[in-house]
């Protein structure tokens, strides 16, 4: 078994995300991918389904430009960003068994369900490996009711690095802040950070001593274990070394972190931390699970008293509750775009090199057979994807084909994503990327 630096960094990203590498800043050390490849990707998955009526402009039945139509109320905040937007209707996920969420299968493109372990790597993880290298290639955040985020600050439902290898998402912004900015923080967060650093250093030292006694042929395997600690500690050191840079991006810790009034305070702070990790170049892939891939969740901060399962039993179009949730999502998307637009990169801004994939982990609704799986793309990867338009597909291509399209644009060869030819015969009418959505 051989482990290289890249593997190690990748593995680090799966856990709480302690990792380091040479490249920290977005303008340096980009991997060699094609000119139109994204430099960072964001997956935003709202649970309970994404009903097409909440995003497709009224009366729009066929593919066409969005320039002369008005976006529906739930996503009207995206109106100023219409030229970056591509609404795709008519993908399917029938093979993912999406009723009540396919969990890992949503981003993996395979069968999933509650309690079912991941059947393979998910697209966000695969992309994090090929995008320009960063300290923490893959960051996952999960938004839920405040109770659930407190009781289970990390859960793994959406992303995976391989079969049976779930990737955890962070739901407590205090923990995530400590991970990302512990070195530049003060007070309790600083103390926690120092205590953990000191403990990890001692474990590393003990593990390293035990390694000396091992036979030569066992050392390599054991060295990987020890190197894990070195890397966790190394991340802290590296982050400390660039603390001047990080300070510019670190959000201010306020009452919303320590004493949230509603769950949305934590949703907002988690988003801020995600944005800061992108802007500072700490990560290249951000996965946001609003509802954490399950069929519950709460948004009381938006004035929605109902929470949990029933939200998925409602029709979403023209429903005031779902208008509020989708509007909240849209504001988050706008914030992501505005923040990334504010950072110059190359001849444009960071947003010019960013792809946002907004959809649901639950296809079009909670109880669904997955025959339709609407998606919105924001950003066109230097023109690789069409934008400013609506595309109506015929329901014969799976979400795997979208993931394959993104992988291809990111420089990865291959005609399928997580789909065998035998499955494809049944579930995909074509091969390779979805030509209708590419320029």
């Amino acid at each position: 078994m051989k482990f290289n630096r890249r593997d190690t960094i990748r593995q680090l990203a799966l856990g709480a995300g302690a990792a380091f590498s040479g490249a920290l800043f977005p303008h340096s050390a980009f991997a060699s991918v094609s000119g139109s490849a994204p430099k960072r990707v964001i997956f935003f998955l709202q649970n309970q389904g994404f009903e097409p009526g909440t995003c497709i402009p009224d009366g729009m039945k066929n593919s066409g430009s969005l320039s002369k139509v008005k976006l529906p109320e739930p996503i009207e905040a995206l109106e100023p960003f219409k030229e970056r937007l591509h609404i795709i209707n008519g993908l399917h996920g029938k093979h993912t068994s999406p009723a009540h969420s396919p969990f890992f299968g949503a981003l993996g493109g395979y069968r999933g369900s509650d309690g079912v372990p991941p059947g393979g790597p998910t697209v966000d993880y695969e992309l994090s490996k090929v995008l320009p290298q960063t300290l923490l290639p893959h960051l996952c955040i999960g938004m839920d009711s405040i109770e659930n985020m407190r009781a289970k600050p990390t859960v793994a439902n959406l992303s995976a690095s391989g079969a049976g290898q779930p990737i955890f998402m962070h739901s407590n912004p205090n923990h995530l802040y400590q991970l990302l900015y512990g070195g530049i923080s003060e007070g309790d967060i600083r103390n926690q950070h120092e205590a953990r650093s000191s403990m990890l250093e001692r474990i590393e030292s003990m593990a390293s001593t035990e390694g000396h006694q091992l036979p030569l042929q066992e050392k390599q395997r054991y060295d990987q274990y020890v190197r894990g600690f070195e890397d966790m500690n190394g991340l802290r050191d590296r982050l400390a070394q660039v603390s001047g840079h990080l300070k510019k991006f670190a959000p201010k810790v306020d009452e919303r972190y320590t004493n949230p009034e509603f769950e949305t305070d934590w949703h907002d702070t988690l988003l801020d931390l995600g944005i800061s990790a992108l802007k500072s170049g700490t990560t290249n892939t951000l996965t946001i699970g609003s509802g954490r891939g399950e069929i519950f969740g709460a948004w009381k901060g938006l004035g929605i008293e109902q929470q949990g399962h029933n939200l998925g039993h409602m029709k979403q179009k023209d429903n005031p509750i779902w208008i509020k949730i989708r509007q909240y999502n849209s504001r988050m998307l706008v914030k992501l775009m505005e923040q990334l637009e504010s950072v110059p990169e190359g001849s444009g801004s960071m947003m010019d090199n960013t792809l946002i994939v907004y959809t649901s982990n639950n296809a079009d609704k909670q109880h669904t057979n997955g025959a339709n799986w609407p998606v919105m793309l924001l950003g066109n990867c230097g023109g690789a994807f069409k934008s400013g338009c609506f595309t109506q597909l015929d329901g014969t291509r799976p979400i795997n084909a979208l993931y394959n399209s993104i992988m291809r644009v990111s420089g990865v060869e291959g005609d399928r994503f997580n789909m065998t030819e035998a499955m494809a015969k049944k579930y995909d009418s074509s091969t390779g990327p979805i030509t209708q959505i590419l320029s």
Partner: protein
Amino acid sequence: MFGRSTLLAFAILVIPSLRGKPFVPGEIIRGDFKQIGELFLENHCFDCHDDETKEADLNLLDLGPVDEINAAVWKSVWAQVAMGEMPPPNKSQPKITERLKFSDWVVQELREEMKEKGGFKANLDPKKANYLEHDLLFGELPNDIKLKPTSSSSRIWRITPQEHITRLNELINMEPAFNPSKPGVRTRGDFVPTNHGGELKLYFGTDRIIRWEGGTVAYQTAVKSVPVVLSSSRKHGFENYADFYSVNSSEATQILNKAEDILKYMAYGPMSLVEFPEQITDNPKTYDAVKPKEDLRGLPSAIVYNTKVVRPITPVYDLMRQDKFTEDSIRKTITFLFEVLTFRPPSEKEVSEYLQIVNESIKKIGREQGAFMGLSSIFLDRDALFRPELAKEGKADKYGRVMLQDWELGLAVNHALSYIRPDEKLRDAIVQGKMRTRSDVRREVSRMLDDDSIRKPRVLRFFRDFFDYDLSGYICKDQKALASTGTSARDNAYFRAMFDATASTDRLIELILADDKNVLKELLTTQKVVHTGNDRSLFGRRYTKEEQKNAQEEKKRAEELATLEIAEERKILTKEVNKLEGQAKANKSDKALKKMVASKQKELKALIKKMADMKRKAGNNVNTNVEEANFSGKQIFARVSRRSFGTGSMKPERTLSTVPESQRLGILTHPSWLVSHSDAMDNHAIHRGIWVRERLLGGGIPDVPITVDAQLPDEPGTTLRERMRVTREKYCWSCHEKMDPLGLPFEMYNHAGIYRTTEFEKPVDAKGEIIDSGDPSLDGPVANALEMIDKLANSERVEQVFVRHAFRFWMGRNETLHDRPVLQAAHEAYRESGGSMKVLILSLVTSDAFLFRKQNIQN
């Protein structure tokens, strides 16, 4: 690169110099490419694979010494020669020693050349273990081969995900003690089973839940559980050789996070899980008085825990109850935690090191948080994740081997059978210096094997790894293809049925192990079946088209019969309602009449509903697709997960019955095994054939050449056998003849594991053939799977191959020629004992291969 005549001359000169010395397998072979590699290729390969003939498009003339570029070709050469596939039978064959020496040399060169480029370990993979010819282990050994007393490498062995979860589960959950009147029910020491969806998770506090809000999914979301984090890349076959895995930093990070959750639960119990203290009560109504008036489904606050303390009460609990920590209490906690996590007591130095970590954490972040953080570091101790077998303490014998002793030997023995800590007797033996000899091991292993209350999940794990019957719930089935099999289960209900089937097969194996007579033969030929109520259909027989038609008519008749009386009643009532409606229409002002009409209409509606229900109920009793198995037997139990899915969780109740006559024979014909070797759309005759070839016949299967597009044509309405005609092409058949004819006999079952006599309205063709098995008495055509299994179950060779697999599992490595005496002794012990698994295990774990370690052995 070189002239062939020169080479030949060189060969003639060199060969005599290689003769005469006995060959010791695995020892370094002195000689470079010219002396060994080129010579062998010239003598045995160039005739067909030079620049002129290029058989199979392969020219070896320019291959040259092993390097990074040609490593893949050399690997194929190694595989073909090691397996005896090349040179082909119609060509002159190398001497056995020459073949072995060349294979060892190629491995040696590949290992050296690839050292910094990803390494070469293919020869250590269990899939390649059969490349070592069976007859060399159990037949005659050429005189010029010299064997050494065997041993295994000194090593560290990472624990498996299942072991890890079971070890952690011991800290927070009390599993019931073994109950001899209910064997099979999950007991302390059994492995933690996967949940309703097949995920391996650690559950917190589920044994105290007395109420929750919402349904099955709400329960699953609200309860606290954490998934396993150690990785395992197993798909088929042995999961865990000693050299497979390490622990990466993401796993280490998650273990730390999980550790704090576990420690908090150890200290505070469900209080660490709840939002409101009132959630812990024996009277849920007291919680109702204070709980939030909103939809709590899926939230931690939806759960009510009783007040009964059922978790283990440990020094962690005692420590956190103290107002002020004393050094003594922290030391005591560290000592306790260290032993429950590593299974051995810590040294004084280790306690001091962890004490320092705990004290530093407390100093930095305070008493409570600091204690949890500091103690969590013990979860990452090397020995909490790896089991060392370094044999540093003993004295080497004249062969350089050192016998394991004391804790290393005791834990190796414990690990041979168990996932949890050594019991008191074994612990005492270790502490008292009574784990140092072979007879010490025999004494302890015999004792443990004979005591049913000491659970042996490793033994069951061996059978899971050997048979691969536990994969059925992970085979994603196409719903339409599934419906065509005749099973009524769909979606998640189907997958849950498969996880239930795995648990049932586990139990069946345990019952056969309890008898401990002719274990392998029994497993292959048993008529017993452990099943749930829903399995009658899966163990049934698919109706022919004609029979389906008859069954549909029968169903119709049953529905009519059941509703005969009520239909008459409905007719009368309908007439009455119609009449009243007519009257009401004519007398619109008659309110009493209107009321009567409404009442009668309601009555009629209820009657119609009742009739529909009766019809459905009567119809449900008639299966129109499958003749269900007529099971009857006594109730037994199988091992299932803690409640993971509310009322939809798996249930332990099972029945022990007999399979329908002439339709099934042993667990290879049970749905759990058949579906595990199927795919989304159909049976997987190739996988099944590979399984029989490798696990029962001991044959090797080479890797699929990268030039092969391994796809069968998509031809709806045609049988798998017809579609597999493509594998009969010359290029494919040399490999496929080893598998296809062994897999096709299982076509007597469809891909849900249901027995069938017809396929596409024609009689099922389940013919097959055992070809070139290594035992001529086995070779020949077979009519179906039953005939094939019957033949195999009576074969001595198959028994020996089974012993080879048991060796691999318990040694954690592939066998070498030096293990020949161990394998022969184990097989003899198994035979002489009448096929006792206990005797086989005892023989293996008291062998030199298990007891002795040696540094730097190239396995």
